[in-house]
């Protein structure tokens, strides 16, 4: 499958490796300390401490090596829009704050455990009893309060920045409609509907081009999520939700439905194709045209209209005007079929039309029980729909 490459700067990689090495070193040190303290502990305990240490280290090493080795990248740490960049920044900040809390509290627990570990507690006299201390209690009530106050301020600011009202007025407006288990993208201002692939133009540094999405659902709750372009927003039946993002780089960004929506929730993929304004204009122009009437597909077209295909699918320029399934007017301009289950090739279309459930068990497109010849004919028409 095609997707944009992850952009990882060499510095970042270096930082990663240094961190991992430092973590491994402290792991080893800690293990040695623990080992020393539990010499007299029963055998399984000792073995287990070592087992734990080694497995933790293995995990860290894998973490250090696997992350940069990505072929494709959907990480929320590789933001590609102004919105996801902001979330990314907040993420690092919050990670630092919570990381600090973790180090302090976990450090205290670990230090106390190692320091006060007693092997003769059965016989030793009871330690002095400390019932508590109001000044200390008040201190560690106020400290978290201050921290969460700071966090809350961060939240207020960032929520405010990302709200739909903040979307620039020249944003490209698209209505996304979630269906079980595919996406319809309705370019109302341009007058066409497409499916599963959202094309948007890329602005430049000074004039970032924003995309404003109106989110609706045709059946159950779905959620629009393209991690590198921003957070998710649900598509709730009977409501219109909105979201926006301003892409910062060209490429293909994949995402998928993030709210469980039934059998094929896992295969409700989507892709956002960010391209140059020229490419986008070209694409729009093509999409606005009615379907190509290629004589090579005449027989297939006739069959398509005779069978019940037309009840669910629209092909503009023909009698087919169903809306239950994806609009097929420019089917071959899309990269995948079945909301991302397979690449959009003639071979795959043959399998798909013969029985959609081969690729996507339980999807709502029925097995039409066509003969192989009929399948061949219909597909020969479909592949003309450029």
């Amino acid at each position: 499958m095609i997707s944009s490459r992850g952009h990882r700067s060499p510095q970042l990689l270096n930082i990663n490796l240094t961190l991992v090495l430092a973590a491994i070193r402290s792991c080893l040190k800690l293990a040695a300390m623990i080992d020393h303290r539990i010499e007299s502990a029963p055998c399984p305990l000792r073995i287990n401490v070592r087992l734990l240490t080694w497995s933790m280290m293995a995990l860290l090493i894998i973490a250090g090596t696997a992350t940069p080795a990505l072929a494709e990248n959907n990480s929320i740490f590789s933001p590609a829009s102004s919105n996801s960049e902001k979330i990314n920044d907040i993420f690092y900040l919050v990670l630092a704050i919570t990381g600090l809390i973790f180090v302090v509290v976990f450090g205290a627990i670990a230090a106390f455990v190692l320091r006060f570990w007693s092997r003769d507690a059965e016989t030793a006299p009871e330690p002095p009893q400390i019932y508590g201390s109001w000044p200390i209690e008040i201190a560690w009530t106020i400290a978290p309060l201050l921290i969460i106050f700071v966090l809350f301020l961060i939240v207020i600011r960032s929520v405010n920045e990302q709200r739909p009202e903040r979307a620039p007025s020249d944003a490209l407006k698209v209505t996304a409609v979630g269906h079980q288990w595919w996406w319809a993208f309705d370019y109302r201002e341009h007058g066409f509907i497409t499916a599963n692939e959202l094309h948007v133009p890329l602005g430049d540094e000074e004039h970032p081009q924003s995309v404003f999405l109106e989110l609706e659902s045709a059946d159950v709750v779905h959620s629009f999520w393209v991690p590198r372009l921003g957070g998710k927003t649900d598509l709730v039946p009977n409501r219109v939700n909105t979201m926006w993002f301003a892409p910062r780089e060209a490429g293909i960004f994949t995402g998928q439905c993030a709210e469980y929506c039934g059998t094929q929730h896992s295969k409700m993929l989507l892709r956002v194709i960010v391209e140059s304004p020229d490419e986008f204009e070209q694409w729009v122009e093509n999409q606005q045209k009615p379907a190509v009437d290629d004589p090579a597909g005449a027989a297939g077209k006739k069959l398509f209209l005779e069978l019940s295909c037309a009840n669910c699918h629209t092909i503009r320029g023909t009698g087919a005007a169903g809306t239950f399934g994806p609009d097929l007017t420019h089917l071959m301009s899309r990269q995948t079929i079945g909301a991302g289950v397979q690449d959009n090739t003639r071979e795959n279309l043959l399998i798909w039309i013969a029985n959609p459930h081969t690729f996507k068990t339980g999807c709502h497109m029925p097995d039409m029980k066509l003969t192989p010849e009929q399948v061949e004919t219909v597909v020969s028409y479909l592949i003309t729909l450029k």
Partner: protein
Amino acid sequence: MQADTYTVAPARRPLTSVMHEWVTTVDHKQLGIMYIIASCGFLVLGGMEALLMRLQLWAPEMDLVSPDTFNQLFTMHGTTMIFFVVMPVEAGMANYFVPLMIGARDMAFPRLNAFGFWMFLFGGFLLYFSYFGAMGLYGAGSAPDIGWYAYAPLTSPAFSRGNSTDYWLLGTMLSGVGSVSFAVNMIATIITMRAPGMRLSTMPLFGWMILVTSGLILFAFPPFTAAEIMMLFDRHLGAHFFDTQAGGDGLLWQHLFWFFGHPEVYILALPAFGIISEVIPVFSRKVIFGYATMVMATVGIGFISMGVWAHHMFTVGMSDTIDLLFSGATFLVAVPTGIKMFNWTATLYGGRLRMTVPMLFALGFLALFLIGGLTGIMLAVVPMDWQLSDSYFLIAHFHFVAFGGILFGIMAGYYYWYPKAVGRMMNRKLGLWHFWLQFIGFNLTFVPMHFSGVLGMPRRVYTFEAGYGMEIWNQLSTIGAVVTGISLAIFVVNLIYSYFRGREAGDDPWNAWTLEWATTSPPPAYNFEEIPTVKSRRPLWDLKHPDDPDWKHE
């Protein structure tokens, strides 16, 4: 009452007579044990569901189970673990030990207690009966596949044919009825039946946490029941509560569900906190640090947790104000929870730590719950939630709370109280293997999920896309799940082995301080020969240290 029926060896009587006794019992200890045994059974089921899911996710595009089966697996796993594993095991421990700890002879309403247990068990059976009985006219006989929070309108007759959803609704509703009767009973018992001299302010912390839990149950479960009734009316009487075609609103379900669902998290967590608050002092040989703030924090959590539910819904398109309100309230919960963490940690300071198995589990709890709490703070940061919500990061977060936190706490409770209930110690060697394998297995399963979430993997997917770097994390998770499974198998073996072969425990094997250790192990049917009079939070400490009793310091 016939003395000591409970300790009579079962083998001496015909099986039917023993079974009759257990089925008709209203004794809080027998009911407690039945709760716990039933929850172990459901734990095996829920665990196998989890394992199957992990095996399916070993690699992209695996074909081990079908999509529908997978969807049923996660629905059943979540529902089972929450309603039929953690709820009953905690109810069982509360049932068994709260009356003992407060010096009562039984619960306030023994028959209501039995009713609650049987409601829970029947609810569980009803849920699992869906595997056989949910045929309906559609012929889709199988388990519910709606997810454990069953968002409307996926549950409407149009999208959920057959009767599996009805089994889910009725099963959880019945267990909810059981929970409410448990809560009524617990509140009445704790408030009115404490031993002479035991004021609320000298009650063991476990009692306090159960009291607050019960209060939460009282106000959180009925709205859930009401919502489920609405859904049943929608499904069977043609009502329109969640019918978007007729102007109904699916979000009403989400609000009602989470109004129950979030307090539910604390209903599950507080009893575990209570266990930790008993175990850590005993094995640090120190009194709990800051008893009063612990109580205040518990009550505080109780109140705040009723007002944070919509933080599960930051992505559904609520207004700014509501998002911020719930984000703020969620941050606020961190304060009392933090106070608890700090008090437990401070209790360790200056103690003489005995590394028994329950103590190891309690320490494991501290470490893992800390992580779960901190990722919770991340999720309360609304824009971060937009990214992380409904991803594997969220799965990691709540398993760090529910498994790393709550289940580790429960395990501490098992090892701590088993000698009291059975009269024999649990095997230490097996216990150590159990702890370390569970600790390693747990981390191996759930640490990688943070990464797969960040890499864009949504929850509840039966497969994931190749080439995005999620493969390695999913494989680690699967290995971890297998290790966790082995550790839990060792646990079950330990439970059974120690029942027959465990070392005799004696009345007070841990040299502990609360009243349950003042009677025999296992306790007689009437609990105490003579109801003790209590002067402090640690009556047995007073007894053992007449020179420096607690009540001089409180």
